[in-house]
């Protein structure tokens, strides 16, 4: 079970959270400006890297706040977390 550093509550068990997939995939400003392919890309296509990945977690059983977490998908190492919208330290290998 991962230990997820909630920016508000500190490190907490993964079981307290809900996973929210890739971070920083904003709802398009004007969905109608997107053609069908681009809209489908927004809806259904996400990155799936082996390595560092910025992802969203929702502290369901805690403060009920969303945050972004930088995690290495191969090792589960966590580099840091930040409230949604705040800048999260980029990690590159």
């Amino acid at each position: 079970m991962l230990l997820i550093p909630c920016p508000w509550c500190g490190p907490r068990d993964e079981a307290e959270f809900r996973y929210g997939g890739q971070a920083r995939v904003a709802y398009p400003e004007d969905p109608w400006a997107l053609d069908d392919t681009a809209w489908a890309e927004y809806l259904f296509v996400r990155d799936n890297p082996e390595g560092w990945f910025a992802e969203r977690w929702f502290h369901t059983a805690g403060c009920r706040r969303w945050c972004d977490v930088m995690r290495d998908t191969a090792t589960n190492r966590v580099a840091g977390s930040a409230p949604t919208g705040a800048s999260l330290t980029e990690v590159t290998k």
Partner: protein
Amino acid sequence: MTGFRSVPVPAGSEATVSFNGRELAARAGEPLAATLLANGVRTVASGVYTDRPRGIVGLGTEEPCGYVRVDSPPIESMAQATRVETHDGLCARSLNGYARLPEGEEAPRGDRVWAHCDVLVVGAGPAGIAAATAAARAGARVILACDAPQPGGGLAGEWDAAEGTAAREWQEPRIAALRDEPELRLLTRTTVTGLYDHGEVVALERRPHAAASGGAVHRLWHIRAGRTVLATGSCERPIVFEGNDRPGVMLAGAAVGYARRHGVLAGQRAVVFGCHDEALWAAVALHEAGATIVAVADARPAPGPAPVAALYERGIGVLTASGVTRTTGGSGGVLSAATVAPIDSDGNATGEGRSFPCDLLAVSGGHDPATALAAHSGGRKRWSPEHAAFLPDQTPPGVRLAGAAAGTRNPAAARDQGERVGHAAAVEALAHESATDGAEVADDGAAAPVVGSGHTPPMALWTVADARTDERRAFVDLHRDATLADIRDAIGAGMTSIEHIKRYTTIGTGPDQGRTSGVPATGIVAGLLDRTMDEVGGTGSRPPWVPIPLTAVAGRELGELFDPARRTPMHDWHVAQGAVFEDVGQWKRPRYFPREGEDMRAALQRECRAARESVGALDASTLGKIMVEGRDAGTFLDRIYANNFSTLRPGRCRYGVMCTADGMVLDDGVAVRLSDTQYMCTTTSGNADTVRAWLEEWAQTEWPELCVHITDVTDHWATISVVGPRSRDVMARLAPREDLSAEGFAFMTYRDTTVLGVPARILRVSFTGELTFEVNVPAWYGRAIWEAVMAAGHPYGITPYGTEGMHLLRAEKGFIVVGHETDGTVTPVDVGLGWAVSKRKDFVGKRSLWRPDTAREDRQQLVGLMPEDGDHVVAEGAQLVAERPGSVPVSMQGHVTSSYLSPALGRSFALGLLSQGRERHGDRVYAVHLDEAVPVTVTDPVFYDKEGSRRDG
């Protein structure tokens, strides 16, 4: 009688145990395996797949054969005899073949415990004791988990009398001192079963003594450790030869362990066979304990001079470059003799063998560091020819190894290593807040394991065979009954990967996880394929390290505590009325209220007729209620719902539907505008949590600039729906001063008022098509107001109805239920809610309604379905097909979503989703379920009161 006690049972420790109905004298607290050996019980069980007799092979968790069933509390359907602690009255029997769960007996209780520490030390041998002590003295909070009933286990050093004595003299005062360390928690009988990410560790604590008092016999520990030290020791490795499975063939270290720790000799006349110095020291130890040493064989041409000299002093010679080629069985197939022959470095006999009569064959092929826990979270190992063993190479972050687990086989060196590693772990744990910071593990200088000074290197030896060897009787995995021939078959079938060979042969798949078979299998495969040990590698190791009873996993999360049950304020009234309940999410809701002699169908018809013809009452408290408040509440809801809410005037209600971003229906319900800045949104009963989280997600992550606050107030309110043409009369008795007329209290408005002096919010909404007053009162008053409603309605025959009636009544009106008519692949347009989709504004998911797929003309749409036989109720979930029964191929065009017998219609009816359904009213399709294909006519989904004339009474 072959085995015996070299040390008598001390006074006060005597116990009597029963094994296969025979009473045996035991020393309380010793492992059952020791009792069996002491009493000459050689055959303990039979093979899982063969009926070959099997005896005790090991000393602890590595035991592959000696499985028993324990019938006295705590009952264990499958246990290693090496790990069952004896006590007076213990009752056990052989486990032959597979285990069976006990029937009709109460399952043992389990508990779960959560704990945190800076340093966790696994294993309490010399290295573990040193590591835990050093870590505690460095200021760390330490947990020391020890598999055995007492610390001090490790076998390293037991073989050399002088070093063994020194180890014990070092160890004993330190064990006593452990209990004085204020921040050190010693967990005995506790086996760490898995290492997971970020320092999470799971351990199983056995509490056999708690069975008598009805306490939890297992505790499953979930430990978060800053740093972990694995001082898990090693596992002794057998050698494969024909007949190596007979009772009496035992690991040499185990034979010494029984003698040294428990005062039990496993046999009187022993042959000792090995390929390293520790096996020779085992012969010394067995002789010292009182066994006659019949022969000692060492596969090496030049064994270590020190143990050879020690044996010589005892008048025992060593047969060098020799090995056991086969055993001979006596009565019942147990060991009666071992054949020793000269062998080459691959274990092939180079000359004639000689048979030595014996009742104990102590074998040791070497020691494998117990690194499985490190492997759980990504550790690797590499073959060390110098040690003739796989040693840990890369360890996972935050994990260190010490002692025999790191390949160190000298007790003094293990202690030093433990101390260094324990101290380093403490310093590191105290310097970092958690193990998630991703810090690289610093090199603590403890990498190089020490073999032991002055020892002659061990030899890697996997098999011994001669020209006559029957490989089908040379066992590699004694638990899975898998043999040398099986490995040869796997390779013959073209397999070269150790993982494939493992699965083909089942070697290492037993509950012992192949402790004693894994490395020999790699060695044999390497030999057959002419590859190196590292090229073949070992099989992956996964948790749990020892089996965990499911009762321990369940803990107390059983029955009532399995999942929280939510009950409405009126629950007890429903129970008193004999309601039949169903689960809706976590809610317990009355399904129907049967009267004497009524079945569900009869009760349902009566309840629905009352709601349509007079008055019914529904406990609707479970309806989700979410407050959306703030300056931008209207804007926010406009973006969430398909329809407009900012234009809704305070005091009014509106039905709304919301979609996921892909345009599929997420939920629906009525929202009420309480003021300019306040809305109360209702949700489907089972969906309140989902909707609340959905609103929070959009408010927080996409539109943080909007001022909105979201609060789930579902259980603040008790909700009573008073339904039917006489509902106005009932309400008039409850709120006599209110204008309840159709004009004065219009449909889709609400009023904050009082009912019998209790603050109440009354909504004029309808989920049945009938005149309805939905009365919301603070939850504390729910039961009282419910009873008042029932009393006020008594003259009109007010009838409580449940979820089944609610579903039937709404289906007659063609109202959808999210989760019945929708399943995440259905858009509002599909279910006929296109009218609710705003043309003017954007909302989440709107763009998706114009995707090529959602705009497809052959999408499945909500329809009514009339079975041609009006007495037949079609099955919900039945497929809808156009073709006549028997014709092929069949195209599946939709399915039945809801199906009932309607008292109002006097016949059966159904709702369904059907491809292009709205254009097919009047068509005949077939509802196919199991063996029946029922002809149904496609209709409009509104069956009752199409004009909506009844909603105002």
